[in-house]
């Protein structure tokens, strides 16, 4: 049990570090690679949790996440980047320094907010995915580039699955994981298709 918790915590910290790197990365190509690394670690975490808890649904979810989100979606993203060279460039609107500061502030807010959740749950297990969830939301808000926003969405997906694993691992996480991946794939298909007609999609602000 202690070894299992140590492995889960270690992988969790790695996932969070990748979340921070994704938040501060300006080059879209590198961002996709970081996202791929983060998702591979999450897949391993899910498979370990599934094997330890003897839940085949989690093992299936881990394999599905690895194949679909860690391999297929990043490859499609990279193919889109190659086709439209503009994607390879830096996203000039986002400054690395401000992203780092915002990331640190978000992490501190996450820890403080989670203290309230801890009083109810009595466990710190959910803190890392909670901060990761906030990072995902922050990426979606801070980025204008549609592909960068997809990366925020995938970080958010990773956080939710991780949260489900460490807090309350139940069968319907498999359906949740598949649905979230389908949404990610549809988003990607739409953006790559629209990009052919209109060029890179830049959403100025997420307001009506």
């Amino acid at each position, binding site marked *: 049990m202690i070894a299992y918790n140590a492995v889960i915590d270690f992988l969790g910290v790695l996932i969070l570090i990748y979340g921070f790197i994704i938040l501060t990365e300006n080059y879209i190509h590198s961002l996709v690679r970081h996202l791929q690394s983060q998702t591979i670690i999450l897949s391993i975490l899910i498979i370990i949790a599934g094997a330890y808890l003897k839940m085949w649904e989690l093992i299936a979810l881990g394999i599905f996440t690895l194949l679909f989100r860690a391999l297929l979606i990043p490859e499609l993203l990279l193919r889109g980047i190659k086709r439209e060279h503009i994607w390879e460039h830096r996203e000039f609107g986002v400054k690395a320094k401000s992203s780092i500061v915002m990331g640190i502030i978000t992490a501190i807010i996450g820890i403080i907010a989670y203290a309230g959740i801890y009083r*109810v749950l009595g466990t710190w297990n959910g803190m890392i995915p*909670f901060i990761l969830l906030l990072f995902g939301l922050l990426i979606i808000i801070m980025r204008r580039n549609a592909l960068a926003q997809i990366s925020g969405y995938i970080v958010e997906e990773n956080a939710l699955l991780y949260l489900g694993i460490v807090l309350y691992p*139940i069968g319907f996480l498999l*359906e949740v994981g598949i*649905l979230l991946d389908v*949404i990610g794939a549809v*988003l990607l298909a739409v953006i790559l298709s629209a990009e052919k007609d209109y060029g890179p*999609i830049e*959403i100025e602000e997420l307001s*009506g």
Partner: protein
Amino acid sequence: MQESVIYSIFGVVVAASLISIIKNNTIAKFANILAASVAFILSLYLLIQPDFHNSWLYLDFVTKVMFVIITMIYLFAALHANVCMRNIKRFFIPPNYGWSLLAGFTLTMLLAVSTPSLGYAWLWLEASTIISATLILMEKEKSHVESAWRYVLIASSGLAIGLFSIILYGEITGGFTWVNATISKGAILVGSLALIGFGTKAGLFPMHTWLPDAHGTAPSPVSALLSGALLPSSLIVFYRIYGVMHSLPLFYLTAILGILTVWIASLLMISQKRTKRLFAYSSMDVMGIATVGISLTYFNPSAIYFVLIVFIAHAFGKSALFLSAGTLKRHGKEEISEIRNLIGSSKTLSFAILVSALTVTGAPPFAMFFGEFGIFISLISHPWLFFFLISGVLLSFLALNYHMISMLFSDGESMRIKLSESIVPFGISIASLFLILIIYFWGWNL
């Protein structure tokens, strides 16, 4: 018996969706109209059946009414879609796939309101997001891509918080069902996260920013479903969680958020230039009132009946308004300032718009008035909340009807609108007048 009726409803909708994929546009249209008619009749039949539940389905009065609302708007949308489809110049997805997605969208909402599991309710609402976003993309325009994009990102981010609340709910209560569940701790935490999560999908302030774009750019039948069926379905899922929480601070939080939504929507309605965005903000306003109604179930569980009356009246009114907007779009009129002397263009369409605008703004004696009146009376013991809600509702009444009067009665060039283009909205508005009688003679017995 009830179980087989429910599965029959699901079955016909699934069949319509599948037939639409493999067959051409005309067959897809007839399959959807037929499926919607059968589903609506079966939903009406369910209304007179006793309550029922098992581990997969939960059928109480709330579910039954939601079934009627969802299938009814699906029917209206299917009947009028032909008029609106002709507006689309370039299809992003083939029209028969659009029909298939329309049925799929209806199915996700039916499943979301009939499951006793909060986890699956979340799952179906999230599925509805991606299906409806694809429907917004039916027309290949950059603005549509951006609207759908914004919708999916904001709604999914909100629903991510909703899933977080459900995972916490599972950890605290040891399960995901809301039936006979009680919560010993963390009611405010879970409840407020659920309010943010499902409130995003219901278009509550300040998470409403996807709503005007999505409603404004979607094909009109889809806008009608989004407004009349999807927003209430999200609030019903929140209502199920709220019922378990039973917390006084959560009552205040929910009621205040509802009132703020009414005010913000009303203020934004004044400055709108496009018809469908105006109607979208009106939907936000009605969801604000319904949220206040849901909050009142803390004191009086029967307050949910007033909310259901609001939902039914809104379903009639907003369907007719969005479908009328689709007809006007067909004549190249999307801006409020372009639409003048509508009364001289089409008596039937003008009648539909007038009756529907009065219905959704809660004017007496139209159907929504009864629901709103019940909510106001229930709120009277909280004078400040009462004052701010009633003043917000008054403002929204003035804002929407000001625009409607300018469209209907001001001088200007008239259009040649055929009867076939306005017959569905006209029929809906006539039905909404009958609804007044039904609620008056039957609703008080609830």
